[in-house]
């Protein structure tokens, strides 16, 4: 299964900003239940889309050495909903980053109109931190995510 809630990156400025696109499609299973006869992209999955956009941005900033885990939704606000046919854009900015964690700001657009803000915090679980019970390999940045970045010649771990 692909737990991917962004379709592609359209901008990637290492260490600063990234923008990803998600096209909402009626063929997505979850829209059939959310809600029957009135399909709406769940806000929780838009937060996940922002987390994936910002998470890759944060991971790249430290060359994907750490596992970047969503630690906290600092703020999330939506003023409108998205339905099949809409193109959602997630724009993420790194606000602060250090060895332990990172914070990001994010704007959600429906087409070209801002409809929400999602500010997040990520924790860096480095690959040696086995006491957390995390797998040794970097399960966060799988090939599926890295493939999204091929167009941007993004640096990966040495």
């Amino acid at each position, binding site marked *: 299964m692909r737990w991917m809630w962004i379709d592609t990156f359209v901008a990637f400025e290492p260490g600063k900003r990234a923008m990803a696109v998600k096209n909402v499609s009626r063929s997505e299973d979850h829209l059939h239940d959310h809600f029957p006869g009135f399909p709406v992209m769940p806000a929780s999955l838009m937060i996940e889309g922002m987390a994936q956009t910002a998470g890759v941005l944060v991971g790249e900033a430290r060359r994907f050495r750490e596992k970047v885990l969503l630690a906290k939704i*600092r703020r999330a606000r939506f003023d409108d909903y998205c339905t099949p046919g809409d193109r959602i854009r997630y724009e993420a900015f790194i606000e602060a980053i250090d060895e332990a*964690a990172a914070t990001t700001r994010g704007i959600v657009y429906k087409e070209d109109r801002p409809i929400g803000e999602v500010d997040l*915090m990520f924790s860096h679980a480095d690959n040696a931190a086995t006491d957390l019970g995390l797998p040794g390999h970097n399960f966060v940045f799988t090939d599926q995510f890295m493939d999204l970045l091929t167009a941007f010649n993004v640096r990966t771990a040495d």
Partner: protein
Amino acid sequence: MAMSRDEVFKKVESVLVDALGVDDDEVTEEATLTGDLGAESIDFLDIVFRLEKAFEIKIPRGELFPDDILNNPDFVENGRMTTAGLTQLKRSMPHANFSEFEKDPSVSRMPDLFTVKAIVDFVALKLNQSG
């Protein structure tokens, strides 16, 4: 320009309102972050990030909320801080009030040291050092 303690408190209050989703009238000097304001462990890091931004200061990790003391076997025995542990903790946290904690230095009571007042005092101290 020096900031008054009241100004520091107001900014800390707004940081805590944003970080913990509490009302501003819940943020009193004596309120404990965990017990009264419902902070969880990850919130402590969030608070540090927000304080750095709000006051334009750098807070080395572990300085405001020491996190390496409980891992040291010399400092904790049977769930209580040893004398050495307490001495170290006091040295690490000149911004905290130990008068209650000293009577029963159980590790489980350590979160009570993290009060709004401790944060305000810590920031005031930092601003003095840099100013």
